[in-house]
């Protein structure tokens, strides 16, 4: 596994823990189709949520949230519709969330400091 993918998995783990603590029920992780992938699919109360997780080690290349653009959001929206269709959840209200995970190395320790930023209901 390459380093960047390891970072991604690590970030998704942390995001999933964070969302569970906030009351989300995780339905699926890394749901894949031929045209794309949804990082996390959860139920927040009665809402079906597609969560885009962006992970970065440090802020040297900008904040993770700055790297989610309009095209990405449209793709997630389409995939979420596909997911709902595949699981017969047409009538369930849906929304898109984004979770930014910034991993920072703490000097003199193997532990990583994690900073999570959660945005709900993106347009």
């Amino acid at each position, binding site marked *: 596994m390459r380093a960047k993918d390891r970072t991604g998995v690590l970030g998704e783990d942390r995001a999933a823990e964070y969302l569970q603590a906030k009351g989300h029920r995780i339905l699926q992780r890394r749901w894949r189709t031929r045209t794309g992938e949804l990082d996390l699919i959860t139920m927040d109360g009665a809402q079906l949520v597609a969560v885009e997780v962006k992970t970065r080690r440090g802020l040297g290349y900008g904040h993770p*949230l*700055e790297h989610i653009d309009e095209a990405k959001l449209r793709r997630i929206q389409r995939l979420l519709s596909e997911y709902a269709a595949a699981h017969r959840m047409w009538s369930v209200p849906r929304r898109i969330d984004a979770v*930014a995970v910034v991993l920072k190395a703490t000097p003199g320790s193997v532990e990583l400091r994690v900073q999570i*930023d959660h*945005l709900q209901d*993106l347009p």
Partner: protein
Amino acid sequence: MSMGRARSVVLIGMEGHLIEVEADIGQSLPAFVLLGLPDAALRESQDRIRSAAKNTGIELPRRRLTINLFPASLPKSGSSLDLSILVAAWAAEAHVAGTAKVVFLAELGLDGRLRPVKGVLPAVRAAAQAGAETVVVAAENAQEAALVRGVEVLAAEHALQVASYFRAPGAVEVPADPAQEIQRVTPGSPHAEPSAGGEAAKDLADVRGQAEARFALELAAAGGHHMLLMGAPGAGKTMLAERLPSILPPLNEEESMAVTAISSISSGAASVTRLQRRRPFEAPHHSATAPSLLGGGSRIPGPGAVTRAHCGVLFLDEAPEFPRSVLDSLRQPLETGRITLHRSAGQVTYPARFQLVMASNPCLCGLNVGSGTQCSCTVAQRRNYLYRLSGPLLDRIDLQVQVERPHSAALALQQPGESSAEVARRVAQARAVQTERLAAFGLSLNAEVPMNLLSEQLRLPSKEVRALDAALDRAQLSLRGYVRVLRLAWTISDLFLKDHPEADEIDAAMVLRQSAGVRT
């Protein structure tokens, strides 16, 4: 609270408009939205503001930041809104508080340093008139801002100082250097220096001989008359004209404010430190275009030479070399004392009440003086040369004087002429007399007196004006020329502290009008 407010001022021409800056932080992906007709320079501010905030240590949130500039319909430009936008954003994040009524006027550097901006004086004055009590400016602009009375001026060098001054209770500690606190500048404090003279002016004592031209210059200063100096190359036309500001009375409070405000918007940022008392002197080269003289530029036009010469002297050396259309474009500001420029983005009016002094050679070769025997120009050339000055323009020039080349006898005296200070004293006296007489008609200078006033309330006894009437009857003088001779005669009599002009003054005025030999 995710709303923050601050204020700033944008200038349209000389006019300042108070702007309310609102910042809203939304729960959405990071973006910077600027509303309210910003121009390109203002749009660029978003990058400066993000970097400045980051390098200051109080980062803006990774959210959608919407900035609204109110009133939204007013086109806004320039970088002077930078600081107000940053402060409004900080207020939205509750880093700072109490900024809603404070006016911020500074550009931001990427490191968070405050940079000076142009036009602080008119902007702060507009803010004060709109009821603002506190203004924050860059340290370099502090003295300029403090010229406006009735406003508290705070000078900062870095955005951090602003953040710590307005720190909201409960907000994170600002990593500010305690040695660098925001400075409160008041007109009385050592930061603000009262008005003083600029560099030494050229003195009339340098002019040797030239009795007639000196007298004409004194008349022009006393009565505010526009003047045409005609003379051979090297006769001293430019030398005389450059010394006119030194014998004019200093600017009064109101004029001084206007002149300083003009130099604040037209020269570089942070060049104004005190009120200007000396009258400005503008001498554009004869290659000048109409926009450079009158003001111009796309969107909102900037001021030109006529505005920079407001309350002072506009000197056109080699006047016939100016394009005729450029010269004639001066007629409107000469008449109204202001210039209105129209563009699709809107119109601006600048003050332009200046005293026009033109210098000219008598002909192409410049030697058509005295008997004119040395002149090599043809009659047609001579005529065409002076015809470049149009009739309607010459019509507004009260004084048209011949400047003689100095004679060896006059130079040999090696006597310095009368100094500017002495002449200025007489000029001030003559102006006081005029103001006393003309105040009832809402005027202050003889040059402004209209024809109907001269023929009614200020009518002279017919025995005094007999010679003048005769000249009019013999068609040596047009009716307009007649009026100008009368105005000049009044100034001469004021200079000699007489009650009204008599035959001698009228004779002298006729000589001074016609000595240049330009058609009347």
